[in-house]
């Protein structure tokens, strides 16, 4: 238990440092993007005849931070806000907090992307085992080819194809929006049914787009384990098929856990293409729009959420690894 705590505290310290570095970098980069809406608003007010003092106060009230002042002042102001859990005010949607915007976008991203990731992971890993075991047969070839093909097609092409097939050629599922507006949001049948209906195509697209990566990774991992001596040893000791399969699967899936944890972290970046195609108001779309509008606070906020998610996913992956791989566990104690 003590080692776990020590391990965790080390991870947390490193994670916080990493988050600080990324926050600082993104702050500097964002402030150097050409185009400055706050400054623009401030100058517009002066042109309209306001005094600089008034214009500054008015802009500050509107956007929640100083339009003038050095980059350093803005930076310390921003960090101070973050430390108090304040992500700032959105510039493009005046009067709304960044946290609120991210929160409402996140619910449209997390569910479909999480569903898509888990679906493709389960599918890819299971079929990957067969692709590896039957790799010299027709079934294995077919599975590997399906993996390479889907892995090679860009996400947005798959998205467009899915829309073309299931919404245009054979219109059984809605192609746009997260839910039909005529239903009252809440825990009621029609609303949830509509949610699921609208989520099906995005989830399918996401699953198809990432399935190829999983099946290929699992196939090569299983193929490696199959060549390991202990598998043959187990076979020659007469271990039953079920036990042999568990030995193979558990060893082969190890390296994939790290990838899974990382892609679960990336989930908070949203899936920009998929969200655009299906008009899903998720995090990806929010990020793209915030960049277009030079919404500093919102950009910084989405970057921060993504950074934190990835750092947390990394820590989770590492701790999980220590649970499932005794070699890592003992290595930490030594």
């Amino acid at each position: 238990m003590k080692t776990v705590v020590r391990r965790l505290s080390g991870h947390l310290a490193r994670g916080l440092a990493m988050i600080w570095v990324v926050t600082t970098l993104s702050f500097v980069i964002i402030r150097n993007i050409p185009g400055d809406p706050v400054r623009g608003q401030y100058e517009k007010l002066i042109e309209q005849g306001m005094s600089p003092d008034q214009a500054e106060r008015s802009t500050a009230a509107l956007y929640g931070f100083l339009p003038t002042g050095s980059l350093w002042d803005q930076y310390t102001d921003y960090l101070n806000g973050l430390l108090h859990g304040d992500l700032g005010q959105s510039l493009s949607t005046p009067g709304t907090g960044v946290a609120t915007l991210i929160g409402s976008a996140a619910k449209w991203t997390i569910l479909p992307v999480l569903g898509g990731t888990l679906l493709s992971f389960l599918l890819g890993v299971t079929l990957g085992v067969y692709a590896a075991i039957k790799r010299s047969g027709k079934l294995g070839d077919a599975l590997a080819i399906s993996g390479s093909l889907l892995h090679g097609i860009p996400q947005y092409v798959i998205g467009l194809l899915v829309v073309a097939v299931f919404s245009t050629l054979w219109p059984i599922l809605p192609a746009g929006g997260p839910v039909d507006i005529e239903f009252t949001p809440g825990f009621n049948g029609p609303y949830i049914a509509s949610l699921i209906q609208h989520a099906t195509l995005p989830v399918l697209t996401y699953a198809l787009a990432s399935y190829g990566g999983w099946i290929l990774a699992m196939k090569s991992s299983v193929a490696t384990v199959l060549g390991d001596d202990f598998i043959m040893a187990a076979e020659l000791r007469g271990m039953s098929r079920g036990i042999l399969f568990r030995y193979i699967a558990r060893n082969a899936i190890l390296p994939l856990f790290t990838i899974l944890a990382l892609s679960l972290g990336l989930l908070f970046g949203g899936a920009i293409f998929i969200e655009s195609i299906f008009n899903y108001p998720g995090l990806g779309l929010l990020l793209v729009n915030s960049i277009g509008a030079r919404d500093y606070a919102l950009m910084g906020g989405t970057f921060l959420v993504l950074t934190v998610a990835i750092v947390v996913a990394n820590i989770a992956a590492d701790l999980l690894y220590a649970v499932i791989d005794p070699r890592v566990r003992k290595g930490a104690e030594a």
Partner: protein
Amino acid sequence: MTRTSAPGVRVKDLTVVYKTPAGELPALGGVSLSLAPGTITGIVGESGSGKSTLALSLLNAVQPPGRIKEGVVDIDGLGNVVELTGEELRRARGRQVGYVFQAAQNSLNPLKTVGKQLLDLGRSHDFDDLPALLKDARALLGRMGLDGGRVLDSYQHELSGGMRQRVGIMFALVLNAHLVVLDEPTTALDMITQAAILKIVRDVHHERGLTTLIITHDMGVAAEVTDSLAVMYGGRVVEHGPTTEVLGSPRHPYTKGLIRAIPRLSGDIDEARALPGRPPTLGTIPKQGCVFRERCPMRIAVCDTVDPEPVTRDARTVACHAVGRPATPVVPKEYV
């Protein structure tokens, strides 16, 4: 099911081929070899001579792209192993024939403790009394100088090479198999550990009344523990007989060359003569004639066309045209 006496093994005309782009090439070309019940037989030969392929054949476990093309591996109590398939074959493995892997190899699942894998083994072979199995394993490990309880709670990476090898031997014996095959059991171990392992092998062999087959390329190992010794070359057993006789008065020119190539601990290193030439690989084994003729100092005309049949005389089996002809003493003086 459990046998209490050592089984005999008779391998007859065993041919194992490997599928390659150049067609099916023989790794074993009609090997015949008998293991007498209760003896330790050694197989020596250079890398690629077919030793391990022969060992795997005893469990009908030649790995693809290889396959047993023809021949019989008859084991007392099991019948012809070549014809066993599926569950029958799986149950024979481990339960009746124990297999010990090279020391350097990792023969354990790195994610499970030795004890858990032992339980997996017990369940695979329908052992009802798993606590008794653990007790047997602890006793065996203790017999080999290890702390059984500690080892069973350990993962592979927590054990040294010598300890792993002893664990491997435990796995081969714990189900009470009476035929044990050890594939280069001491390769990659230091001399002290090697000696300890060999002593264990010998002692356990006698205590349990086993039939043991040891594959090695180390003549010293063969001399130390085996009762009878088979010398393999190019997928054939070229000489087989009691160890003391094979090593003391080798008949086949390859055996002679092999013994001359061993450097003595005391004496000039130059006295050790390397055998000229290289051993054949799968692709370079001659299609006809004696496989050893290219490197043979006793080569005669018939060697080019006819593969010598193994001839047995006074417990010695030798496959050589030159040796088989008592009338013409063609053995060069330097070899006598």
